[in-house]
Structures are given as C-alpha cells and as structure tokens.
C-alpha cells in the first residue's frame, strides 16, 4: 500500500510526540514531512528555564536529534514557516514559496509570547521568553547590561527572572496583581513564595500596570500607570502566551482563542487536525505539557484508524522550576461557600499545604515547601476519590517515619511522571523485564522523567525499592568506574598487596571488564600506581589530553602554553621573550591567567615543541593534576604592611613541589599579612605571614565548591612551613580519591584527623620521605619533548 502523506506544521514537543506515537502504532502508514520555524530539531522547551539557571546545557534539551528524523525517514524543513493552508486543494504554502500537498495535515504551531500592546514594545531589548533564541538574547544581554525587568509574575516570568539573576543581572519583576502566581497559589502560599524569591535576589514591583516602554532605539525603562518609572536595559515580556493561529486564520479554519478542535482533535476542515498550545478544546487552551501529550496520543490513534474514546480535557497541575522552591498546585485554588479546606501551615519549616474538599472529593491542591504528596493528592483529585475516611495529619512525628513505605504503599496505577502520564506499574515492569537500573535508563525505556524531570527522585525511589538488595550492591557502591566492581580503596590496597606495577597488570589481575579500561579508570590507575611506587614509569597514553600533550587543549583543537613564573615574579627579559614568541607564532591571545602568569592561546599542536624551545622556560603545568601556581603578594620587600617575605616563600614552595602528581590540581597562596592579598584563604594550601611566624590554611577552594580554608596550625619558621606542607600534600596524595580536591577530601576525612597525623613527628617524617622519593623521578616535560625526537613524532606531528 502506498504511504499517505502526513504534513505537520510545527516541530515542537506536542507535535513531534504525535509522530512518535504514530510510529509506535504503525511506522508504515505515513510518509511524514515537518515544517519548523526554528532552526533546531525538537527540543524540550520546558527545560529552557533550567538552561538559563545554568543547570542544563542547550544540547541536553534536544529530545529528538537530527538522526532520529533521518532514521524514521521524516523530511524536516527547519527555519521555514508555513504561511497558509489551502483546504480545498490540500496544499500548504511556506514563506520560502514552497508548496507541499498533504493527505493529512496537523497544525502544531504552539504559542507566541503575549507582547503587551503598549507604545515602545517594539524597541530593541524587549523580548518574550519562549524559545532558544530568547534564551540566547538574554545570555547575550547579561554580558553587556546590568538591569533587567520581567513583566509578569506568573510561572514563566518568575522562571525567566531567576535565570536572569543567575546570569548576574539585577532583576525587577513587575506584576499587575496583588499576589504572585495568583492563578495557581492562594495569598498565603503566594507570600511565602515572594519572601523566598526576594531572598534569592528578586525585587518585586506589585500592582503596576505598564503603559509605555521608554528609550530611543533600545529600551531604557518602563513607565507605569501610576506615573512611576523604572530603569531597564532588558525587558522580558512574560505576561502570558497566546495561541499561534496565524496560518489557520489565513486558511478558513475555525479559530476562536485557539484553533477549535473536537474530542478527536479535528478542526472544522476535513483532514486538518490541531494539537498543543495552538488548539482550543472545549473552550480550553492548554499550556502545559501533560495534556498536550494526552492529546497527542488521541490524535495518533485517530490517524492510525484506532479511534477510541477521544480526548475529554484535563485538570492540570503546576509546579515552578526555580531552584530551592518546591510548589505544586492543581484544581480550585480559592475556597467558596460549598468547599471546605484542610490546611497545614508550618511556618517553622516553611511548609504550607492546602487541600480543598467538596462533597468528600478533593477539588483543589496547593502545596508549598514540601510537594512529596503532590502525586498522591493529584490522583485523588483527577479520580474524584471519596476521601471521607482518609483524614490523617501526622504532627511532629519522628523524622523518616511514615515515609519508609511510601513506594510499597503506592498503588500500581499512580502516576509518577505527570508530563508523560507514566504510572508506577510501567516503571516497575521496565525495571523487572528490561533490566534497567538507572533513572536515565528508565527514561529511555518509558519516557518517564524526560520532560520536566521533577519526578526523577521518585523514579530513583522506585528503582531502589524494586531492585531491593541488588540495587544496593550494584549502584550504591562507588566503584572506580564501570570497568570494575572495586572501589578506590580496594584497588589501591590490591596494588600494594599484590605488588602490581603497571596498568595492564592491574586490569588483568583484578579482572577488569574492559581489557583496556576507560577514560575514568586509566588516568586514575596511572595516578595510584605512581603514588604507591615512587619509581613508577608514567604511562603517557593513559593520561587525558592536556596532561598527555603538556598543554591545554582549547575548544577549536588548538592548544595554550603557560610557562612557569614562580610566585608570579617575572623579569623584563622573560617578558620580552614571551612577547617575541607570541609574535613569531602569531598567537591568537596573550592573557594574564588567574594564577599570576601569562598564557599564550591558540597554538597549533605541531608548533608546541618549537614554542617551548624558543621560550626556554619550564612548563607551568597549567593543565595538570599537580601543583599549579603559588600566588603571592608583594610582601615586605615593598609593601608597607608586609610582615614576611611572601614572594620568596612562594617561589620556594613552587620550586619544591612543582610537577608532583596529585589526585587533583593543587593551588597555593602566600600572603605577607592577614590582609591576605594572595587570597590564601581559598587555596588548597594557604600561607599567611604574621609578625614572627606563619599561619597555614588548608582545604580552601575558590572554584566549583567555594570553601574557606581551615587553619591547620601556626608555625614560626620557613622550614616548618615547608615540612608541614610536604607532609600535608603527601597525606592527601595517599588517601584521596582520584579527582577529589583537597576541599572535598578534607571534609571527608576531617580536619581533626589530618591535624592528628601531622602532629606526629614520626609520621610527618615518613610522609616527607616518601614525597621526596617521588619528587626525584620527575623530568621537565617540555625540555624532554625538545630533546626526544620520538616524543615529537608521536605527539606533535601532523602529516
């Protein structure tokens, strides 16, 4: 049978879900063509606020990548908008003049941000919050401008505002009404939310009606009805969405607020269907993903001639995706004379729960601060369960009680993933029959957790419960990587006790599952072997790219070169050399690094040995799991406050410990007085000079896990600083996990434990002795590449 031609206008979540459902039912029925105005494959629009808030990357939002379209033989036109449909001759016309005929047509055009019809709304710097392009605009604006104003204190507006705060902007939220999210929250929950968001840095301008956006070419501010104004470099309109019905309007298709459809998603024109945010069903236009997926299922059945009972509308639940805030609401929010409420308001814990009941049935839910009950209550709501014999409120019960059996007592048909309508039983079956063991695998198998992701913790609980003991064994143990069932301590123990000396030996003897390991275990084993055996011969090809190449790879495949500049001290001669090299090799960028030295960026890998030779300086190891830099202040040599010679202390530390392999990078700082200009308090090892002595701080971190260092001890002499630093480093080398920074390691083993070890003179000496033996094995890597032709041939040649 010849395939019928199915054309879909719109390439978003709702529409593509229909196609997925059709392919599931019968992949041979239709040849599918999709037109999308955006230049991307189908992505998860819900996740855009996570992207703005820095929790998700753009590429992670892609639901169906290009390969999916190709594999399913779907013709996809991106960046092309359908302008008009001709229902008579069954063709569509695009903005590129393309005409395409169809047997069946789906309109899935989604919605557009509602732009307030006020003067100035067309100025530069005024955007909606709807697609990737808007997100990119916001990110770009945040690099240039300071002040953003979001119009609209609903879901969308608050998520956009939180994202802009994350991007470093100062954010005002303008809201027309007295309360935030007044359609989803009652005044109590709303004011709790407002307080929390204010603490997160949002500023609210309540009950303000926008009348004009002022500025020249670009927006500069907003004027309100009450005559007040507020300054703005960026205005995000998030006051609502409106169905995108442009094409339908042009084509004789019946449109009210949205494109009007019946229970089978059929429009008034034959063979034309509408779905998603552009469709109006029983006078409701839905803007949340769960109902749209339900519609998708129905439409797929219709198109595959499996018409069932049709779509009857949905009651929707809402949550806000702002980190640190848990809220959920569904159904009726405000009491009336016929409904009664159960309210729990725990101001102490910041928890508020309200359930509205009419005729023994739940008709509305508002949860703030604790949304664990949302699925259970929501199910009561949609199934109209009789709750007359259910009231029970546990007050001040012991922690953990009453939660342990949540999964056991959860009915098999309770919805876990609201977005995709996946019930507990489906997930349990996937775990039992498909052998899946992670949340991601459950998602791959059932779609659960793949839209908004809020149910992922619950899926995790179901996994734990269903797998029972096997879950504990297989997933809770932190093995070195997927190639082994052993953890770090077991591997290191076996390397010592079985006297294993090479990576290959470790893998053979300890029965590695992949013969040559992976990018997790190979670098780790290389480190552990070198830590245990001070005469270990490093296995260069088991190091990750930067350590292997002794330069930092950049995103375009070029490398950067950062020579040592001990203690951040240089000379006119060295600066001249660096300048000459930069010119000779046409370096893309010369930049001062965060560690007080100079980086040359954008070098070709085949030029690296020559660059090093011309520089004639040792490697700064800016790429290594090793000592990076010792940052110093100018100290008493020049500074009127300095009490110690911080520069020479820093230089001595750097010369003594450079090249040492450590579990992760190590940064040091030496300041000559407690003003601490070298930021010693956020270094792995920080030294602060006092009049007549030094303080040693450890476990500080200025990066991912911001942590202030702990005071390890106060000492009198330079010798003691060097001795303690050495012992501390070696203790870290011998006990830390691979890739565990000193800050995390110190939290794990405890400051007291470290202090105790280092207070013991015998232990201190042993640690330093082992460290000295290890330090003796290192050679300067750049010099070695200059001298050794085979290294140059293997690593730095292009043919």
């Amino acid at each position, binding site marked *: 049978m010849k395939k019928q031609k199915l054309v879909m206008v719109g390439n978003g979540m709702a529409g593509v879900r229909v196609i997925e459902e059709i392919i599931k039912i019968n992949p041979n029925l239709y040849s599918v063509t999709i037109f999308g105005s955006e230049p991307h494959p189908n992505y998860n629009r819900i996740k855009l606020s996570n992207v703005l808030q820095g929790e998700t990357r*753009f*590429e992670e939002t892609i639901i169906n*990548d290009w*390969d999916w379209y190709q594999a399913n033989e779907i013709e996809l036109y991106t960046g092309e908008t359908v302008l008009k449909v001709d229902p008579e001759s069954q063709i569509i016309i695009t903005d590129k003049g393309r005409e395409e005929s169809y047997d069946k047509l789906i309109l899935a055009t989604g919605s557009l941000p509602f732009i307030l019809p006020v003067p100035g709304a067309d100025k530069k710097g005024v955007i909606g919050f709807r697609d990737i392009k808007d997100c990119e605009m916001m990110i770009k604006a945040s690099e240039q401008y300071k002040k953003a104003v979001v119009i609209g204190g609903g879901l969308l507006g608050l998520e956009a505002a939180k994202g802009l705060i994350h991007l470093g902007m100062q954010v005002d939220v303008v809201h027309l009404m007295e309360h935030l999210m007044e359609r989803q929250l009652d005044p109590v929950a709303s004011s709790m939310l407002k307080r929390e968001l204010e603490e997160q840095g949002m500023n609210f301008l309540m009950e303000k009606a926008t009348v004009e956006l002022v500025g020249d070419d670009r927006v500069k501010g907003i004027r309100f009805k009450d005559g007040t104004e507020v300054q703005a470099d960026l205005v995000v309109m998030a006051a609502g969405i409106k169905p995108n019905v442009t094409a339908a309007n042009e084509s004789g298709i019946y449109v009210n607020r949205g494109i009007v459809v019946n229970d089978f998603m059929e429009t008034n024109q034959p063979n034309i269907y509408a779905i998603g945010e552009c469709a109006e069903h029983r006078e409701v236009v839905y803007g949340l993903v769960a109902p749209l997926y339900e519609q998708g299922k129905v439409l797929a059945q219709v198109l595959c001639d499996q018409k069932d009972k049709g779509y009857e509308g949905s009651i929707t639940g809402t949550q806000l995706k702002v980190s640190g805030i848990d809220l959920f609401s569904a159904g009726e929010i405000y009491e009336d004379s016929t409904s009664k409420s159960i309210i729990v308001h725990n101001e102490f814990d910041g928890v508020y729960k309200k359930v509205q009941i009419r005729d023994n049935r739940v008709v509305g839910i508002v949860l703030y601060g604790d949304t664990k009950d949302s699925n259970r209550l929501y199910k009561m709501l949609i199934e109209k369960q009789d709750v007359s014999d259910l009231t029970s409120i546990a007050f001040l019960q012991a922690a953990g009680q009453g939660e342990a059996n949540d999964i056991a007592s959860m009915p098999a048909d309770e919805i876990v993933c609201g977005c995709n309508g996946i019930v507990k039983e489906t997930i349990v079956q996937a775990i039992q029959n498909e052998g899946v063991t992670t949340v*991601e695998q459950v998602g*791959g198998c059932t779609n659960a957790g793949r839209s908004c992701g809020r149910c992922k913790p619950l899926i995790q609980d179901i996994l734990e419960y269903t797998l029972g003991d096997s879950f504990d064994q297989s997933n809770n143990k932190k093995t070195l990587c997927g190639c082994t069932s052993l953890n770090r301590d077991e591997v290191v123990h076996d390397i010592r006790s079985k006297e294993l000396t090479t990576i290959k030996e470790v893998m053979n003897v300890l029965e590695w599952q*992949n*013969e*040559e*390991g*992976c*990018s997790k275990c*190979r*670098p780790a084993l290389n480190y552990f072997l070198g830590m245990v055996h001070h005469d270990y011969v490093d296995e260069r*090809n*088991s190091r*990750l*790219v930067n350590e*292997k*190449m002794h330069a930092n*790879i950049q*995103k*375009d*495949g070029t490398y950067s070169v950062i020579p040592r500049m001990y203690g951040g001290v240089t000379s006119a001669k060295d600066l001249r050399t660096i300048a000459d090299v930069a010119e000779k090799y046409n370096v893309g960028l010369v930049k001062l690094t965060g560690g007080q030295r100079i980086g040359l960026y954008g070098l070709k*890998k085949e030029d690296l040995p020559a660059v090093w030779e011309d520089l004639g300086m040792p490697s700064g190891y800016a790429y290594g799991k090793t000592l990076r830099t010792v940052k110093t202040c100018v100290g008493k040599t020049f500074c009127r406050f300095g009490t110690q010679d911080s520069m020479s202390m820093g230089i001595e530390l750097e010369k003594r410990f450079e090249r040492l392999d450590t579990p992760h990078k190590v940064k040091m700082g030496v300041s000559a007085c407690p003003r601490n200009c070298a930021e010693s308090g956020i270094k792995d090892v920080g030294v602060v000079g006092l009049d007549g002595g030094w303080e040693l701080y450890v476990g500080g971190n200025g990066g991912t896990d911001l942590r202030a260092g702990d005071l390890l001890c106060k000492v009198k002499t330079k010798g003691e600083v060097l001795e303690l630093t050495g012992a501390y480093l070696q203790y870290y080398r011998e006990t830390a996990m691979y890739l565990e920074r000193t800050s995390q390691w110190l939290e794990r083993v405890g400051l007291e434990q470290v202090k105790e070890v280092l207070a013991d003179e015998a232990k201190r000496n042993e640690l330093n002795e082992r460290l000295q033996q290890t330090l003796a094995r290192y050679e300067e890597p750049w010099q070695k590449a200059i001298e050794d032709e085979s290294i140059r*041939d*293997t*690593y730095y*040649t*292009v*043919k």
Partner: protein
Amino acid sequence: MIATGTQVKISNIKELPVGIGQVYRVNNEEIAVFRLSNGKVYAIENKSPHPKGGRLADGLVSGEYLFCPIHDWKISLIDGTVQAPDQGKVKSFQVDISNNEGVIYL
C-alpha cells in the same frame, strides 16, 4: 569537504604510534589514524560530532574505542558511531594495510 576517491598513503604502518591518533592533513581537512594494540588500523575524520565540535586525535584509546578529549564521548573507531547515552557519528574511512604501506580511501 574531503573529495571522495582520494587516497592517502601511510608510509610505514610500523611507525604509526599505538594508543594515540596520527593526524594527516588532506586539503585542509584532517584525518586521525589510529593503530590499536591488536595491530589493526582505523581512520576517522578528526572532528567530533558534538555540537561544540573539537578534534579527536589526542583522545584516550581503549580497545576499539576512542574517548573524545574534550567531551569524553565514547566513539567506535571501527565505524565512528558515538556510544550511548550520547549520539552521533564520526565519518570513518576504509584503511587497507595488506602491504606494509597502508592506504586510506576517502
């Protein structure tokens, strides 16, 4: 694009490094050639299919897989397929090493 039909000679198979890629530049495009510990030789385009791109030759080689040096994607050296949970494909080329002189067919 690399013109199909071109042949690239590998002068001496035994001199190819094991455990890291050797880059061949052909008309401004790059090919990364890998000799594995089992003696087999594979060639792929020196370009990651990751949306942010990046080169591949300096990645970590394990068995018949390469770990992308920038994004740590696991890529089959045999046919260029990116392993789950990531997705994508690197262009791979046929290599003939029946003589001591190898040839890559583009």
